[in-house]
């Protein structure tokens, strides 16, 4: 009965090879978030969608893009992954902006 589903759980890509991570939700929440979490660090917000409105954090690298084709799905695209992009990527949703967030299991991205 997972409500925020991330695929795949583990992703390996080559340096510079584009990669897409996916997230889906069954909660019908308005807001979807992408976080990057490196080892022993707190999750760092990359961007979020409030419905169809995209909001990028100021320090999110240009290399990172996102798409939300409908309420249920949100994608994280990394155009040219570098070694420093190896991390756990967390998707989260919330009903509204100030509500508690529900997290997926994350996708662990490795760069060869």
């Amino acid at each position, binding site marked *: 009965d997972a409500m925020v589903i991330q695929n795949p759980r583990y992703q390996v890509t080559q340096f510079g090879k584009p990669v897409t991570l996916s997230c889906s939700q069954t909660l019908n929440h308005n807001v979807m978030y992408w976080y990057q979490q490196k080892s022993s660090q707190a999750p760092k917000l990359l961007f979020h969608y409030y419905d169809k409105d995209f909001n990028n954090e100021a320090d999110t690298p240009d290399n990172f893009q996102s798409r939300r084709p409908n309420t249920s799905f949100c994608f994280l695209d990394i155009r040219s992954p570098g070694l420093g992009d190896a991390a756990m990527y967390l998707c989260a949703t919330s009903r509204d902006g100030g509500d508690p*967030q529900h997290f997926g*299991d994350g996708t662990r991205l490795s760069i060869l």
Partner: protein
Amino acid sequence: AQRVTQPEKLLSVFKGAPVELKCNYSYSGSPELFWYVQYSRQRLQLLLRHISRESIKGFTADLNKGETSFHLKKPFAQEEDSAMYYCALIGFNAGNMLTFGGGTRLMVKP
């Protein structure tokens, strides 16, 4: 700017001992505070929020606006409480975004 500080990266206690995970915040307004927990190999999940004033799994947290703190407490720690704990803040003047503290790893020894 909003900021959350968890001064302890690691807290180790024995089973049955009281535990307090510290959280301090800075925010020029009335924030909403949360504690999230991540057990080994599980997803990050909400433990409690200050407006609910609940006790979840024996944990409580009181918002102290004077000290700008939101410490998490449990009178008798259990081994299954071992996890990573994150304090987080939503500031409604800053786009309603969640800001996490650096996290505290709690280890409860038998």
